[in-house]
């Protein structure tokens, strides 16, 4: 096995025992990137003729281990453009809190940033200004989105591990499509300072990794209170690796019946049922539960998320950074800058968000959505009184073809039907590989837990993973 194919925890052991050095890891990654990046396109702004350089951050526990960062997380001096024309050539003057934490822990920030849907608006990475990323398991398929670049880079061994962000499924759905592990932490667990905001009440940064242990290690590094993010929560961060290997016998697992509906791919259904059987054979007690307001999650999300986005994206006006269109008139300059700088989906969401917040429509849309959000959260609270976890598919289908849903925004929005509720309720959830379709596309199992109970997710996910082989199968590229 090549060095770049190893997990972070395997490499940390090898670094410690001096079986590999930093340079070996970087060289292996570069060789791999030169070979497969022209097909996968996981990275934004990649040019094969440019030699990448990196100064290792070898102090600290991580021994310089490189990490790939999504293009919407600020890295000082390193282009961070949200894969949008409007942030063209933006080099942040500061690091996001998660980047600071990674550097302190001894991680090297990989000099290429991961591709994504523009401003994280999408479920396929087709909305990137730099073009689509391709799924390593089938290059004609999307990698999912919006953190499709991060997930594809990890799946194709072009990265050791990566950070993504998740507003409605943007870590879990691409992790599921690419056959890797992805976690959305509890809202408030990880600081959002330096994450270019999409929907501030929903966004969380989280890990995309090759296995559960890596996700546990990375989550611990990036979590914790940050005075720079007033919504981060001052609560101790446990060592999430402590619970790995703990018995799962007797854990009570809810299976929400609203997640097993018509329209769900039959092969996904089969794979998920097999995964649930596997968990039962390991001793969990599962029963059907109900989340009665599930069908309202997507409409609620597309009101709240677009409303917040329209407000957050007001800052891109050609004044302080990024692209500016030529005009002698200020208002014209704003309008042309935003017309030329934003892609189609960004414009659609900003205009929808502006509409639901505007006078005369606010009560009918935005306020109503906030109230239904309460009902959705209450559904989860009720189930979690009696259950330790819930288990569902991450997505109703495996990866779809590039272009297949691009013309129909509503169809694209429904890709996130199983992941969106988690963000609305603020709870943590993980997606782990749990099998394949007949055509060889990965399927992800989603596990949800109570707020701040990431330990439970890791415990259950690890037990499943260690008793299956799915996470060890690699795409052939």
């Amino acid at each position: 096995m090549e060095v770049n194919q190893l997990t972070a925890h395997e490499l940390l052991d090898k670094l410690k025992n001096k079986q590999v050095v930093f340079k070996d890891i970087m060289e292996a990654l570069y060789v791999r990137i030169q070979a497969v990046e022209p097909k996968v396109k996981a990275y934004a702004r990649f040019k094969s003729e440019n030699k990448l350089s990196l100064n290792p951050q070898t102090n600290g526990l991580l021994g310089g281990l490189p990490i790939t960062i999504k293009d919407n997380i600020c890295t000082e001096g390193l282009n961070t453009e949200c894969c949008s024309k409007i942030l063209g050539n933006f080099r942040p003057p500061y690091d996001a809190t998660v980047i600071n934490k990674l550097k302190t822990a001894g991680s090297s920030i990989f000099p290429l940033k991961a591709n994504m849907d523009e401003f994280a608006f999408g479920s396929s990475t087709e909305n990137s200004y730099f073009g689509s990323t391709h799924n390593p398991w089938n290059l004609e398929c999307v990698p999912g989105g919006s953190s499709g670049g991060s997930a594809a880079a990890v799946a194709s061994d072009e990265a050791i591990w990566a950070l993504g962000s998740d507003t409605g499924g943007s870590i879990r759905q691409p992790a599921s499509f690419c056959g890797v592990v992805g976690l959305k932490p509890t809202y408030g667990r990880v600081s959002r300072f330096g994450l270019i905001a999409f929907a501030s009440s929903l966004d969380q940064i989280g890990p995309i990794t090759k296995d559960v242990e890596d996700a546990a290690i990375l989550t611990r590094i990036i979590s914790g209170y940050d005075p720079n993010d007033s919504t981060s929560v001052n609560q101790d961060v446990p060592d999430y690796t402590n619970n790995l290997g703990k018995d799962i016998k007797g854990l009570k697992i809810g299976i929400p019946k609203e997640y097993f509906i018509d329209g769900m791919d039959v092969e996904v259904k089969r794979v998920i049922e097999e995964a649930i059987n596997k968990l039962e054979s390991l001793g969990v007690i599962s029963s059907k539960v109900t989340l009665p307001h599930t069908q309202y999650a997507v409409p609620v999300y597309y009101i709240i998320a677009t409303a917040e986005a329209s407000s957050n994206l007001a800052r891109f006006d050609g004044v302080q950074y990024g692209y500016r269109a030529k005009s002698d008139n200020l208002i014209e300059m704003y309008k042309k800058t935003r017309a030329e700088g934003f892609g189609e989906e960004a414009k659609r969401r900003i205009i929808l968000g502006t509409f639901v917040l505007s006078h005369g429509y606010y009560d009918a849309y935005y306020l109503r959505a906030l109230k239904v959000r309460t009902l959705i959260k209450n559904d989860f609270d009720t189930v979690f009184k009696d259950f330790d976890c819930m288990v569902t598919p991450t997505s109703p289908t495996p990866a779809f073809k590039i272009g297949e849903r691009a013309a129909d925004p509503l169809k694209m929005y429904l890709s996130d039907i199983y992941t969106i509720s988690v963000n609305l309720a603020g709870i943590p959830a993980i997606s782990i590989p749990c099998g394949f379709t007949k055509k060889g596309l990965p399927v992800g199992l989603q596990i949800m837990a109570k707020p701040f109970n990431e330990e439970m997710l890791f415990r259950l996910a690890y037990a499943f993973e260690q008793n299956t082989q799915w996470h060890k199968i690699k795409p052939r590229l």
Partner: protein
Amino acid sequence: MSIDKKTVKDVAHLARIELQANELEKLSRQLQDILGFIDQLSTLDIEQVKPASHILPINNVLREDKPHVCLTPDKALENAPSKNGNFFSVPKIIE
């Protein structure tokens, strides 16, 4: 509820986005579809429900009113498309 082309045009102006005629046409149709889908929320009785403006029980987070380190003017202006001394420069606002 429905949305017509004039409303989309007005909202686009509020959002400071210039739309071409073909964009306006397409966007109006798509927003009409999306709002049609969203309208299923109107079937719920939510009279007595409190809005979830925040999902965590956090209120009024304050910090001490003390000076702290912030970006220098040079750093803050590094990415400006146009600047003049220590200022961002924009087209003339007042005639």
